């Protein structure tokens, strides 16, 4: 059952404290050929772990601090959706040229936290503290939710947990088409499996270890047939010479494979990264043209395409996504109120309002997913 990304893994280091964890046994079964090495503590980690590609080494261990956090988002005036991230897998084997993880992470291994009961307890606490409102959680912030079997094993635990929750949704965000392990899990409509999408031409130049978009869409269609809610993320949207045809064709393909009525949400976000990541991209992926786009420094100090250009691109994509009857909820990830207004004709008044709009849309479009009709005042804090 090894996935292609799993085959990259050469060694698995196991911290002493998690050697008897149920998940660790499952991970060992999933990686039968990889060398397993016990380590006493994380202190000895850097001495024990050789100077190898961190993506080829798994470290299974217990988490030390909070794993469930508010999504860091970005600074005002850009709007964010108040998502909750579950950082159980740290790093991703897919090597996309634009990936922010090459900037954020510097661990010597891909880290898998195995103390899932503690992580679920953290989630439970968050839900309990705001039981009257919908919370959206996801594992795809610091790693792909499904690329590694080790992450899938954790995802299965989460799907089971969220199936019992009334006001919480789990999002598993991936660029892979490997959903076989999770398809049969009882989810009670509380898991959204979502795919990041870019046209094939961009996948070929910037996402080489991820499957082509059509394979992702076929996987999405299969997940939809099994009753999962589906999400899509056009993020990062990349300004290539033929961007309009490429993205519009991809949207047609998307609606060909997946019934819009099963799509919980679709996000749009253009390429953006901290300025110092530019040199990292150039050094790691010298063939990539991404760093040479017309990028300016945004108000959050991140490099992004200029607002007029982003607006032009978004307008076309947004129009195509929403020209159907009863379109899915489409939102922007880290965009300014001006862009919202110019593209959609309205703008959320705040991050809290955007958060509410998710709940309102889900309540309206997917009866039963949320226990109570959302009230805007419940989303103010």
């Amino acid at each position, binding site marked *: 059952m090894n996935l292609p990304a799993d085959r990259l893994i050469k060694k698995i280091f196991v911290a002493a404290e998690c050697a008897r964890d149920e998940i660790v046994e499952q991970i060992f079964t999933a990686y039968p050929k990889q060398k397993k090495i016990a380590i006493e503590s994380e202190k000895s980690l850097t001495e024990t772990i050789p100077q190898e590609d961190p993506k080829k080494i798994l470290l299974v261990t217990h988490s030390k601090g909070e794993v469930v956090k508010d999504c860091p988002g970005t600074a005002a005036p850009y709007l964010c959706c108040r998502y909750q991230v579950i950082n159980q897998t740290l790093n991703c084997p897919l090597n996309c040229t634009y990936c922010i993880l090459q900037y954020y992470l510097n661990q010597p291994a891909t880290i898998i936290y195995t103390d899932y009961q503690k992580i679920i307890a953290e989630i439970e606490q968050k839900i309990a503290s705001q039981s009257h409102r919908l919370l959206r959680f996801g594992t795809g912030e610091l790693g792909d939710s499904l690329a590694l079997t080790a992450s899938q094993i954790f995802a299965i635990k989460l799907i089971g947990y969220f199936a019992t929750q009334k006001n919480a949704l789990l999002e598993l965000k991936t660029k892979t088409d490997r959903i076989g392990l999770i398809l049969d899990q009882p989810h009670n409509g509380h898991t959204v499996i979502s795919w990041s999408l870019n046209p094939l031409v961009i996948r070929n130049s910037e996402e080489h270890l991820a499957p082509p978009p059509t394979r992702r869409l076929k996987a999405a269609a299969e997940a939809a047939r099994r009753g999962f809610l589906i999400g899509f993320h056009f993020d990062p949207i990349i300004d290539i010479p033929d961007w309009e045809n490429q993205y519009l064709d991809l949207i047609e393909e998307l609606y060909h494979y997946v019934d819009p009525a099963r799509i919980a949400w679709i996000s749009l976000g253009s390429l953006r990264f901290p300025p110092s990541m530019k040199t990292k991209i150039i050094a790691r992926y010298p063939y990539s043209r991404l760093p*040479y*786009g*017309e990028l*300016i420094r945004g*108000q959050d100090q991140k490099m992004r395409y200029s*607002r*007029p250009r982003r607006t032009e691109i978004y307008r076309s994509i947004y129009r195509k996504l929403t020209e159907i009857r009863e379109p899915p909820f489409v939102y922007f990830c880290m965009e300014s109120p001006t862009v919202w207004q110019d593209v959609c004709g309205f703008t959320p008044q705040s991050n809290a309002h955007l958060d509410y709009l998710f709940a309102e849309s889900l309540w309206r479009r997917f009866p039963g997913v949320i226990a109570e009709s959302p009230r805007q005042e419940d989303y103010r804090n």
Partner: protein
Amino acid sequence: MQIKKIAIEQIIPSQSQERLFVEEINPDCNKLNESLFLQPVFLHHTCDGFIILYGFNYISDIYKCGGKNIQAFVIPKSQSLFSALNIVADFIRRSRPLWPIEIARILQLFNQQQFSNAKKSAFFKKFTEKDLTRTLEERYLALIGLNPLLHKFLIEKKAPLKTWFLTAECPPVIRDLILNLITECQPSLSTFEEISRNLLEILRRENIAPEQLTAEMSQVLIEKAEKIQPSQKLEIFRSKIQERRFPLMTIHRERLNNFLQTIQLPSAVEIEFNPNFEERGYRLKAEIRTPNDLRKLTEFLNSAAQSDLKHLLEIL
């Protein structure tokens, strides 16, 4: 190590014939005197004779003036070349960090002498506080191929390492173009860096031959060449490169400027907007010195220009 008086005839050229270190001339030393120690000179005593490690210029000047001897720090035979270089580099480091070109030349010498990687790495770490990787070594070694005038410019401007590397990354014809610009227009370091980076990024973005870009950019200057000051020339060159690097932004800006010209602004009123357009909106700057200025501004705001100002907001 002692200061000794050494006969210049005993000094032999170093094996590499390279000057490893950039030698500063002591500004207070305007009188050559072979019996005084006015400028630092480092010689390494070897089986073949004395090798100059630092002080080429001073020794040469003394020799030209008919001097026969030189006062110098003499590193004894018992010290290896590696140790000798460490001593000189340590001495230089008291007054300034080693320039990237010095590190590059020393790495090249180490390679010629087939020094171990461990020695190379140790020296590198000591003087740069970085780990020596193959890529980093290659980037340093590429600095050796730069025109000495570029070395001089980068040293004078105290350019950071990234600017050295950026310069070396530019293809030779682009470097020649930049060098001409330095000679004629004396740009600041930030302008130099901006122009170099934009030229390099245009090449990568448009995937064109450096010769083609150089020819096109040179043409811009030829067309405008008549009676322009170096500073104007630099500004034209800079903005042309900027326009080429950011073509969509340029089109947007031109469209706005064209529209702005259609608005009949009172002479004391100016419109300013964010140069990268990330924020929507503009500033109306009005200078009111007389009641007449105030009247003109009021008339302007109440006139048909209102719809122009609204339209400007929409197209920004």
